[in-house]
């Protein structure tokens, strides 16, 4: 069952690759958690939203902008887009059954996927990311600059968000709106706009995840579907209502899946995805709150 050849150097490389994967999962999982905390629903369109904004980045770069010039523009578009989506199609259904919200997000996913096909065509294309693919020597282990870059960008983003939530008035209001709607209204917080802001933030997180992963996966309309499943697994593992859980879950899953895929011969590359599904199933059945979650999950 286990693969024979093992070197510490390769193990370190696998860990590095796992951390990089985990960073991407964590970003998208954090987006899912932010929306789940405020809207109680899972946004099945998170992946397509991320891919869509990545396509916008691609178009901007095709029109002469460098990646880092396009980056803030894409984030701004993603932010506004997320807010717009919440205010137009989520707001009418957000007080109804969760399943309705889910199906609306599914409709959104279909719409965005088709739209990407119409505007940019199906099939994949290369995406020139901001980091070079050469490797540098880290303590005797060759690690790709791109992996480091992705992890650093994700880390900075998550840190900024954490600071925002903890130390700003708006961040506090966002947290309050997600925790206790009525009390938030009583102190004058406009809960509706807080929800919209959350969707905007989630869209930004998704955009970053998409732009980080596109150089590796090649950009096509279906690029994020598989990552979305990994993000679901990371969010469930960490606890659907826990931002810390999303980050920790993402990293654990990224490293775990990479190691299992490399060292458990039966799984290999092919069965990594079913392993992620297994994680979701096991966590939801055995410990539905995940590692850090707190919300009560209704059992039959």
């Amino acid at each position, binding site marked *: 069952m286990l693969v024979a050849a093992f070197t510490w150097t390769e193990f370190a490389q696998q860990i590095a690759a796992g951390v990089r994967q985990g960073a991407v999962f964590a970003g998208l999982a954090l987006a899912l958690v932010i929306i789940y905390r405020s809207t109680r629903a899972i946004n099945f369109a998170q992946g397509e939203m991320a891919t869509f904004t990545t396509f916008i980045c691609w178009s901007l770069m095709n029109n002469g902008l460098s990646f880092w010039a396009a980056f803030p523009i894409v984030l701004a578009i993603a932010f506004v887009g997320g807010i717009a989506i919440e205010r137009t199609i989520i707001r009418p259904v957000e007080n109804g059954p969760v399943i309705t919200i889910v199906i609306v997000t599914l409709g959104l996913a279909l719409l965005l996927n088709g739209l990407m096909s119409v505007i940019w065509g199906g099939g994949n294309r290369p995406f020139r990311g901001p980091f070079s693919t050469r490797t540098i020597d880290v303590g005797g282990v060759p690690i790709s600059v791109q992996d480091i870059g992705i992890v650093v960008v994700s880390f900075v983003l998550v840190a900024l968000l954490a600071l925002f939530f903890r130390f700003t008035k708006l961040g*506090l209001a966002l947290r309050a709106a997600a*925790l*206790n709607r*009525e009390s*938030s209204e*009583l*102190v*004058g917080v406009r809960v509706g706009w807080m929800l919209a802001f959350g969707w905007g933030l989630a869209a930004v997180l998704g955009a970053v995840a998409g732009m980080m992963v596109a150089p590796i996966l090649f950009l096509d309309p279906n690029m994020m579907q598989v990552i979305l499943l990994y993000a679901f697994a990371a969010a469930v593992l960490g606890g659907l209502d826990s931002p810390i859980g999303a980050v920790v879950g993402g990293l654990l899953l990224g490293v775990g899946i990479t190691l299992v895929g490399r060292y458990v011969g039966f799984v290999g590359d092919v069965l990594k995805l079913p392993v992620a599904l297994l994680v979701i199933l096991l966590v939801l059945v055995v410990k539905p709150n995940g590692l850090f979650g707190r919300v009560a999950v209704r059992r039959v």
Partner: protein
Amino acid sequence: MSALLQLDGVEARYGPVKVLHEISLEVGRGELVAVLGANGAGKTTTLRAVSGTVRRTGDIVFDGSKLPRRPDAAARAGIAHVPEGRGTFSELSVWENLRLGAYTRRGSVKEDAQHVFEYFPRLEERKNQQAGTLSGGEQQMLALGRAMMARPKLVLLDEPSLGLAPMLVKEIFDRLERMIAQDGTAVLVVEQNAALALAHAARAYVLEVGHVVVSGPSEELRENESVRRSYLGY
């Protein structure tokens, strides 16, 4: 001088059920007014109509202007609502709860926090503790403190004595009276404990099944035996 708060023919419903029927009442500046009545009489709904957290028809005039029906409008106008059950954010710290109380105010709130800590020193001790770990009495103080952070003109207080030991209740009402005297805040308090409320309030309204059945100065209501027996339970 016109009243600070004026309700005129206000009605409210939960779905198809009408809960308030043509409620009219007044609260003057710096006045402590009580709303009394049995369970289900519509006392809590009256407060919610003022803070905009229930759908209502009819006019509410606050500080000279018509009050819009949105919940954040009431908060911005200077109305602080302490709901039944305190409404504290249990997962946030004491300090964060207070900070949220001042949400509608701009600029630094350090002074306001100091003011609150003068009234409730125990809150300063527990500044960084999670609000959910506080005792019932402390949570009530926190809820009041949060309301004070907004420097409101009117505080809506729903069942402050619920679940608290009598000594604590006395402490809270003492603070309330100090707040009214020092800051000129008006208070509209809903209480099931009619005797307690009448001991502190200037005036009171008695509700029954969504109607105002009796109103007047507290001494009058206290001395009226039939009123006491029929509506106030003592």
